[in-house]
């Protein structure tokens, strides 16, 4: 063991199989070192979760927030796969060392970090594509099997791809809405800026007649280009809505 070890606080944590150790989206700055056992790193994608990695003794997680100063929340969830013992490192002392490390190592580390992020995204996209090919047939029918009553809405909206590059938002019209989803009409020119395909995730911004603003993360469930020339009809299913938004839509539905 290195003498510098004493500079780091040595708090140990134990977890049992299945325990959630870190939750995607939560705030947190600690770094965890796996002493015993194995953990699984996973990330949300739409309504499902994809596994990014399995880590074992000697490996570290929770490092993204520490290394990437523009990230404030956990970029993935971590669960215990068996009996797990972790050492918690507070980032303060590591941070000092990191800043004093030879610039070339920082230069390399930053590139590795950027590459890992890119590779994770590539893997997630590939996984999504494979899944949608497998489920291809089911999608065609999804638009016909509505479980919820839809109400006419006809209000303008803007939208943009979720997790995509920050481009100017696109414009459309929310034609109908339900508590679980909506249908949107957009000009076919919009498809030049963003290829609307089933399973793409977008955020739609619109407002209720009362003036209440709505921010709706959605998954595209259907794309229909044959309704009217120049128009594309898009079926949307809401992803997790926050309680207040869901309530506001609920009130609108019965008003």
């Amino acid at each position, binding site marked *: *063991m*290195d003498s*510098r*070890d004493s*500079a*780091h606080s040595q708090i140990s944590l134990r977890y049992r199989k299945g325990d959630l150790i870190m939750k995607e989206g939560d705030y947190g700055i600690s*770094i965890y*070192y796996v002493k015993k056992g194995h953990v699984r790193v996973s990330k949300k994608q739409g309504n499902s979760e994809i596994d*990014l*990695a399995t*880590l074992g003794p*000697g*490996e*570290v*997680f929770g*490092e993204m927030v*520490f*290394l990437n100063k523009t990230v404030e929340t956990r970029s993935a969830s971590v669960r215990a796969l068996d009996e797990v013992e972790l050492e918690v*490192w507070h980032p303060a002392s*590591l941070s000092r*060392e*990191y800043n004093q*490390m*030879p*610039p*070339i*190592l920082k*230069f*390399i*580390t930053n*590139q*590795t*970090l950027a*590459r*890992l992020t*890119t*590779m*994770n995204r*590539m*893997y997630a996209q*590939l*996984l999504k594509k*494979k899944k949608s090919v497998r489920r291809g047939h089911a999608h065609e029918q999804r638009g016909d099997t509505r479980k919820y009553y839809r109400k006419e809405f006809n209000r303008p909206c803007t939208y943009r791809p979720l997790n995509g590059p920050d481009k100017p938002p696109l414009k459309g019209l929310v034609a109908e809405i339900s508590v679980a989803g909506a249908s949107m009409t957009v000009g076919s020119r919009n498809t030049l800026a963003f290829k609307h395909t089933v399973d793409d995730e977008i955020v739609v911004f619109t407002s209720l007649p009362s003036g209440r603003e709505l921010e709706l993360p959605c998954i595209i469930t259907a794309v229909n280009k044959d309704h009217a020339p120049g128009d594309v009809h898009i079926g949307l299913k809401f992803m997790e809505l926050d309680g207040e938004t869901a309530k506001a839509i609920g009130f609108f539905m019965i008003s």
Partner: protein
Amino acid sequence: MEIDSSVYGYMVDEQEYPDKKIILEEDSIGDWVYIVLEGEVKIKKSTKKGVITLATLGKGSIFGEMPLFVKREKRRTATAQAHGPVRVGILDTARLDREIESLSPQLRNLIKTLTKRCRETMKNISRLAGED
């Protein structure tokens, strides 16, 4: 990308490659670390259904750095191929090794994990891309 000025101090050699020339090959053994000085390099990996491009690296990009952090694995994870004429710098591996050795076990582990995860993800991508 701007090349960090400190990098030049580690450069021991420069090499030029014509378009399409392989700079390092997947599964071959080697621990040289490269930096792109001019031109572009494609990082490619084989799958059961053919070769896929994982990344295109430009000026300032480091490649071949994985063995620095994961000592046991000297086999190259992917192929690096010149995309147009390329000039690369070769970095002093022994000196980089010493710098890494001088880090605390914590920091070294942290960087090592990043590298391992990067490599694992590249393998996952290649596996998935090769599936039907």
